[in-house]
């Protein structure tokens, strides 16, 4: 008994310290990036200015003045929000039908949907360019919204399906007895009950949309170019500009990290993929 007591006393110190150490290690690269973004390019590679340096906003002003940051950021917001909404709009009814009226084929359809996500994008690059150009939608926000929605649709349907599946069927049946229409079921029963799952799906999809960097770089020129494209334009300029690079990177990932922080509880609750029983 005595041993157990000392163990837990020790545990009270050791575990939190360990947890904090791991957390700080994981966060360090991001911290480093933010710190470097306030250094001049020359200072950024000098060991003597590792932590003590004169902070400057020069990298950020350069970014907004010369690289049109706001245009890219606006496009990122517009396309990611629209794509997330559209994905949900298509995925919620589909997942609902699959969860509450499963047929023998449901599982196969679901699996097939997921397998579309494994297609290597590079293999269909030229077909996509030909198609979108001939339809006249190359470099439009519409196209980016569609592409982002399509690549995330399988994940969204799967997440929602697993979430809906855990909602007791009786509740829905009770609703049907009360004479609710399908739409009524969705609105009155499903959405309130599955709100957590829908919200965390939306968050995850939004993150994936924001960070997508294959199609958003290759199917855009100016009109629909997002922050991923800004990064591509800055990642290897002449001279190795750690400061400038860090500022652009911080500005590109900053919004999503902050969003992630605020919504992490929500994210944790919904990210079950049916794994939690």
């Amino acid at each position, binding site marked *: 008994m005595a041993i157990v007591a000392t163990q837990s006393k020790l545990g009270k110190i050791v575990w939190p310290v360990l947890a904090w150490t791991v957390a700080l290690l994981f966060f360090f690269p991001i911290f480093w990036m933010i710190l470097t973004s306030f250094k001049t390019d020359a200072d950024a590679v000098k060991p003597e200015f590792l932590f003590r340096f004169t902070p400057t906003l020069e990298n950020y002003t350069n970014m*907004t003045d*010369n690289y049109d940051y706001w*245009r890219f950021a606006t496009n990122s917001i517009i396309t990611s929000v629209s794509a997330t909404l559209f994905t949900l709009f298509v995925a919620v009814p589909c997942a609902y039908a699959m969860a509450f009226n499963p047929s023998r084929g449901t599982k196969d359809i679901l699996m097939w949907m997921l397998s579309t996500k494994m297609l290597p994008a590079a293999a269909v690059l030229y077909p996509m*360019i030909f198609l979108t150009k001939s339809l006249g939608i190359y470099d439009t926000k519409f196209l980016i919204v569609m592409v982002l929605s399509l690549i995330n649709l399988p994940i969204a349907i799967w997440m929602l399906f697993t979430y809906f599946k855990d909602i007791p069927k009786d509740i829905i049946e009770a609703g049907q007895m009360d004479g609710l229409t399908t739409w009524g079921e969705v609105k009155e029963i499903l959405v309130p009950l599955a709100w957590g799952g829908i919200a965390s799906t939306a968050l995850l999809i939004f993150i994936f949309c924001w960070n997508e960097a294959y199609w958003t770089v290759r199917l855009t020129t*100016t009109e629909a*170019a997002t922050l991923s494209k800004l990064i591509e334009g800055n990642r290897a300029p*002449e001279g190795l500009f750690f400061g400038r690079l860090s500022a652009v990177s911080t500005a590109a990932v900053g919004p999503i990290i902050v969003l992630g922080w605020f919504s992490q509880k929500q994210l944790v609750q919904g990210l079950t993929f049916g794994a939690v029983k």
Partner: protein
Amino acid sequence: MKMKSALRAATAMSLLATGVSADGHATELTIAIVNNGHMINMQTVAEAYTEETGVALTWVSLEEGVLREQVTSDTATGGGQYDVINIGMQEAPIWGEAGWIEALEFGDDYDVDDMLPAIRNGLSANGTLYAAPFYGESSMVMYRKDLADAAGVAIADNDSWDNVAAAAAAMHDPENDVYGVCLRGKPGWGDNMAFVTTVVNSFGGAWFDADGRPQLDSDEWAAAINFYVELLGTYGPPGSEGNSFNEILALYNEGKCGMWIDATIAASFLEVDGVAYAQSPNAGNPVGANWLWAWAMAVPAGSPNAEAANDFIEWATSKAYVEAVGNHPEFGWGSVPTGTRTSTYAIPEFQAAAAFADAELAAIESAAPEATDLKPYVGVQFAAIPEFPEVGSAVAQEIAAALSGAKTVEEALADGQAAADAIMKEAGYYE
């Protein structure tokens, strides 16, 4: 500025909401540029052009590889996305011949004959100019005079490789974070292979024979690569297989390199005191030991604003542009794009601001991109054939593997030869 972008953001939002597309009254040119200092400066200098002509300019700046990929995919599928594109000397003649880019026509004021002949030839196909040089470069030796003097060595113009290696050994002082020589090692046909090819050239080797058969199994290649791996492996900084222009520039400016053989343009970025220049080393071969490259501007076939694009290029590569940069309050004569026109080197303000001017001009003028018996293709550090990027990147990875010791030089060259051979066969050069 902030107000403007906020306004633009707001308009963009409202446009999306109503589905109305922007209807510009004036001509608007979309220009794809590689994200280099000179090009970025051009965005500022060109504000005057917009003011004067009313032509609005939209810039898309991208990393070199991504730019190539985008411009290629757009042009190959009929174009239409860009009005002006940045292309290099490797692509210009090929794309011109394939009809991907328009022939350029300039007025008399432009003085086409002022263009450096080597550069002009490299950007033409069958005597027609398809791309106008924005800036040009060759390669040369840049070294720390102070370190060389302290070590009691000197590097002469077109010195022998043995002397260069000896100088690197003398300046090498890793204890104090000074490495004898910094050279490109990062795989890429425009990265390590640019330098490596000049070494191979100087040893008398070439990429292909007249039939297009790769020559990597030749003695010249073996000698050149062994020398390169030995030199950089012994006296280079750690991680050389990841270094290209950007990385080495940062290293050099940190005072960590005794010597650097790279693009002449680097000289205008060097911030370390006591830089001296020498023409590239040679092992006595007539092909020469220095490369020739230009970032040029071209009008892709399919541009809806071809005429306006042609006019813009005429302005951006003119004598007047050089002066505009030189007299610009933000830039000055040290930042003018060089390596394109003879007249630039005659400007006294430029001579005063650029100590490297003479060395650069001499290097460019001595570069020989023409096809010869020894090197039966156009281009110095590349071959102006469509398959070269593919061959070049495959071999580049093998050379990098040899440099980092993952393969021996012999293995790397044999594998490189096999890969190149397969690509050239596939392209129908021979059975």
